[in-house]
């Protein structure tokens, strides 16, 4: 009933020879209907993925995604594009491994080339204690069915001979590697899900900000928006970065703060770095995009903010990490910085859960790990919305884990969001 027809190499050739006249809109711009069965607030990666899987996997209909700006304008549009499942804790690793498996079949599934590229990720090791911790983590990954390898210094040197092996303040002693880790073209993820959802009848409504959530007798009835009231049986909130603002409509205080994470890209350079690497002695991680830009980042700025921009201390800190690890990048130029607002949760792990209000569901708290989670987050949130039961890989992501003392604290930093 909807859609643009399948994408394929043959079609690209055919269109090229006929003036590209056949390409239709990737998605419609429908007017909102009076009511839906499901409203997803937030047209970022997680919201779009949720709508897509609700329609495709859970066979639900009458679904709308409400986006206050443009589709994919959330953190799916501003991140460092890394996918991996190299987590330690039981509450996390099965979920992220599920996500990685979904990435591995995603493009064929939604018929959009998002350039999922598993060129490997390494976490560098600089101390014996780090090696012990990464060994524990690597083993946990394997126990969870993921892949992991421990590299020694010479194996790292063989991969990246230009790292600082000669004059490092904190010598490289090895690395934890996940070969199935890699990168994805981030915008394409949003567009692929959007196109896939739209073609299955989901209404994607841009420039539609939710200004209130209406409830009656403890049950959600719909949402007020800048384009009027829209009724709904179930409302799913997937607005990471702004979760506290949206949930404040129903008076809920969340276990999270909003922080800015800056990320960076250099000018385009001929290929240098094939995979993804994270520095273990500074705040720096890097990969190189298919266009040639070094895409890198570091720590969050560390103060509560909704401003989507950062300040110099973190920019410099990240550059210092980069220069100490890769001494040649002194003459590469930083082209652009950007800032995304993160839901920094109290234990560094997300929440996919029901709320005390019937029909209102919440997905957020992704800290700065949300991009890699996109497929599983959408799938698990769709599962919860459609069945009222958590997906088996997301059972730990509950609100009440803090009350029960069941925190999922990968970094062991406790209830201080800016340290996760």
């Amino acid at each position, binding site marked *: 009933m909807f859609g643009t027809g399948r994408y394929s190499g043959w079609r*690209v050739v055919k269109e090229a020879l006929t003036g590209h006249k056949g390409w239709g809109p990737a998605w419609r711009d429908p007017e909102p209907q009076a009511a839906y069965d499901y409203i997803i607030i937030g047209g970022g990666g997680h919201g779009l993925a949720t709508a897509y899987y609700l329609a495709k996997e859970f066979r639900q209909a009458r679904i709308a995604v409400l986006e206050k700006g443009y589709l994919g304008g959330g953190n799916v549009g501003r991140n460092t594009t890394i996918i991996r499942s190299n987590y330690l804790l039981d509450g996390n690793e099965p979920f992220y491994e599920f996500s990685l498996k979904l990435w591995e079949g995603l493009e064929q599934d939604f018929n959009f080339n*998002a350039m999922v590229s598993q060129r490997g990720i390494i976490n560098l090791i600089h101390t014996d204690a780090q090696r012990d911790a990464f060994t524990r983590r690597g083993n946990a990954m394997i126990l969870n069915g993921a892949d992991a390898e421990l590299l020694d210094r010479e194996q790292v040197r063989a991969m990246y001979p230009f790292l600082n092996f000669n004059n490092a303040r904190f010598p490289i002693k090895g690395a934890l590697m996940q070969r199935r880790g890699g990168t994805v073209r981030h915008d394409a993820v949003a567009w692929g899900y959007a196109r896939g959802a739209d073609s299955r009848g989901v209404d994607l409504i841009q420039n539609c900000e939710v200004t209130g959530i209406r409830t009656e007798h403890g049950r959600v009835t719909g949402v007020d928006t800048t384009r009027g009231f829209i009724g709904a049986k179930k409302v799913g909130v997937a607005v990471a970065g702004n979760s506290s603002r949206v949930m404040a409509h129903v008076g809920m205080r969340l276990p999270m703060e909003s922080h800015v994470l800056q990320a960076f890209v250099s000018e385009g350079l001929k290929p240098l770095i094939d995979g993804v690497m994270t520095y273990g002695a500074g705040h720096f991680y890097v990969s190189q995009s298919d266009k040639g830009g070094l895409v890198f980042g570091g720590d969050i700025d560390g103060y509560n903010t909704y401003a989507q921009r950062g300040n110099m201390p973190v920019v410099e800190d990240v550059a210092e990490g980069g220069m100490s690890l890769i001494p040649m990048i002194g003459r590469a130029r930083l082209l652009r910085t950007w800032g995304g607002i993160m839901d920094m949760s109290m234990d560094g792990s997300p929440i996919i859960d029901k709320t005390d209000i019937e029909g209102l569901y919440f997905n957020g708290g992704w800290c700065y790990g949300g991009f890699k989670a996109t497929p599983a987050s959408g799938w698990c949130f769709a599962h919860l919305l459609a069945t009222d039961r958590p997906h088996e890989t997301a059972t730990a992501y509950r609100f009440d884990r803090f009350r029960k003392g069941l925190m999922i604290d990968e970094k*062991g930093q406790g209830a201080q969001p800016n340290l996760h």
Partner: protein
Amino acid sequence: MTQSNRIPGGQIDRSRSLSFTFDGVTYQGHPGDTLASALLANGQRLMGRSFKYHRPRGPISAGSEEPNALVELRGGARREPNTRATVVELFDGLSAESQNRWPSLKFDAMAVNDRLSNFFTAGFYYKTFMWPKAFWEKLYEPIIRRAAGLGSLSREEDPDQYDKGFLHCDLLIIGAGPAGLMAALTAGRAGARVILADEDFRMGGRLNAETHEVGGLTGADWAAQAVAELRSMANVRMMPRTTIIGAMDHGIYAAVERVSDHLPVPLPGKPRQILWRIYSHRAILAGGATERPIAFENNDRPGILLAGSLRAYANRWGVAVGRRVAVFTNNDDGLRTASDLKAKGMEVRVIDARKGEEVVDTAGRLGLSSVTIRSGGRTETFACEALAVSGGWNPNVNIASHHRGRPVWNDTIAAFVPGQGDIPGLEAAGAAAGRFSTRAALETGAAAAEGALADLGRSAPARDLPTAEDGPYAITPKWYVGGGKGRAWIDQQNDVTLKDVKLAHQENYTSVEHLKRYTTLGMATDQGKTGNVLGLAVMASLTGKSIPQTGTTVYRPPYTPVAMGTLAGRSRGQEFKPKRLTPSHKWASEQGAVFVEVGQWLRTQWLPRAGETQWRESVDREVLATRKSVGICDVTTLGKIDIQGTDAGAFLDKVYANTFSTLAVGKCRYGLMLREDGIVYDDGTTARLGQNEYVMTTTTANAVLVFRNLEYARQCLYPDMDVQLISTTEAWAQFSVAGPNARKLLQKLVDQDISDAELPYMGCREITVCGGLRARIFRISFSGELAYEIAVPTRYGDALIRELVEQGREFDAVVYGTEALGVMRVEKGHVAGNELNGQSTALNMGLGKMVSKKKDSIGMVLSQREGMNDPNGYRLVGVKPVDPAQKLTAGSHFLEKGAAPVIANDLGWLTSVVHSPHLGCSIALGYLKKGDERRGQRLRSANLLAGAEVEVEIVSPHFFDPEGERLRG
């Protein structure tokens, strides 16, 4: 080669010639030239290739907005890819290479992409390369990645130095054109502290590129005179070659000063560049405007330039890009290019879009040879070497939008101007504010400075503006020439054409953000300085929305790209982080010690003796000698905090899980510190030296954090407690002296009696050593031996280690490092960093009883949550291999015998592993589910990363002297 296109005039020093090479060919230029102006003077219009289609390109601009003329500057480790030839100051011996072409700039095999452009439309890759699945990573992507990028890095360490600095001023003025100079004169004459920064090496902005007079002088001469006056003012700091890259919060601006880029190599001791953080009370954005092109077919050939830039090459650099010039404009400023060039004797033909005239096509494979125009329904082709294009000027709003405020559309000039108040304290003036005449620039510059002075409480001098042109700027928007079948470029570097924007519209990628991301418009190294407004204007015309309705993408720092080295400054290599050295470091270095990084500290890891080739030999010897006689270890790195006041004891009861107010004077106690969430985060021994005086020790890793948290508790939670804190970590050198002969050794140094009766286990005293030196002694033990920690003022630390070693000779004393320390603490079952992982409770560590429920301490309440008191949870255990010959590996996981290696069967992990020379085997501590109940059980320790498994026995974590007889001895 001759400078065939050099014409008279300009601000170059013709008395000197500079020799330089481009792609191996030697050329001559003059001081004052840029690489681009010198190449153009030599008739070299072709300087680069575009990113996607590898189209031949020359410069379209004369400034930092340049998208095309990118080169690899310098060679060897100093190679700088993607360098804009238009801003490179020429120096003698400069060498540059073209990039992103193979095998040569003139013949580039990758230009085949240009022929296939019909397939490589915007977003084509999202629609293909999906089958077969494996081919993306194996075939398609490697090809794409190989083709990606522009220039290449050297792969060698950058040899230059970079610095950082901090500047403070009343008024920062960004840009030294007429507006900026007038603002600086106004504020400078009023005595304000002014910083005037300009990205160019020659201040004056467009005054250097124009022919009209200012105050009866040529513009350039007036600018030079203003610069001279400003240089004479002590309150004005002139910063040429300095780009303001970003507006941060609270009046802080980041700036990059290119100190040495105009030299072959930096002068000795000088940095290449400096990153400045400028703290300003007020700022004026006088950064001028950037011209924008018009999209028409084949508008990207070398020789097609922005009109104002073509004029600048003629007026400032004495360069004719060609002798026959066409000018295509939709505004009056373009006409100025025509008249200036005519005055210089060039043949000029004007195509005025406002009269319905258009350029519809161009020709010339490696450089423009002719243009085709349409006028009144007639098309005509004529030969020319240069085409000047003006689609109007965009005020440089970037900096004013760095706080994400959006610029405001101004219909009169058909361009965006800065929004009011988007950055507190910043005002725009001159062309940056959309005021394009010289007179208006001078006026608004003066007015902005007067406003700033008023804000600063200073009176402004009487306004004294020079006479200047105040010509009109009439523009009728003309964005693109339609109707043709060929490609018309919008973003030249990324090869985004009119067709791509139309396709994005057709596919509903109509939001400006979608347009940018789908087509890559504005994502090249120029960040869309010339193409962005044009692109969104085209989209607006397609959607039928107005340009302001369509909006802009976000302007983000940096204004122009910044070298990573500049942002890092001196924090690289060994100077990445400060090094903290222990008091025994010098002595240990003399002994050939091996050091290890522990946070910022360097600690002795072990001290090899002659003949020892394996680290284990040294460590085993250190352990055995300590346990047999006596060993000495520098433990200065442990955090030390003096805590004094009548409420000191009560305060410690709040911050420790166990009780300290009841501790007797002269005694020490082991303490456990929880976070408020009930997780253990630090431990250490705290001694009570007096009724109101305690000395706390923390772990090395958490010294700073504990002190911070204590201050937090003191100031925020218990503000009326009488308690004072001071960190003394660096005030005391502290050594552990451990082993059966520890007391005998120390008694040789300590002036007082330290017999067991006088100083029992867990006792502490203030003492003197070596005949009167003030010191402290604590009878505490991490090794399980009879042990003391002795502290002297840090400056005596080196003397003390030497004295301990000297006096220890009769006992065969050893000095041991962190490895032996680790071995002995594991043998003794003490937790350390690997167990204090921020995820473990006191109960996990077997220390649950230490958390007092009788008092309200930090973490006490939440440590009682059910999930943290699971009877089936992790408990600290000792681990031994069943076969002593087998080695354990930390990070291995416990599995039952016969259990499949899946997460459901995971029982825990080995936290710390050492080789115990006493037990003659590998031993470990670990967290094991129901560990207390599993003593004596045999499990598997699986290191799946290495495919290795060891059968282990679960034992008590106290491997050595479990009754503690030795330490009480």
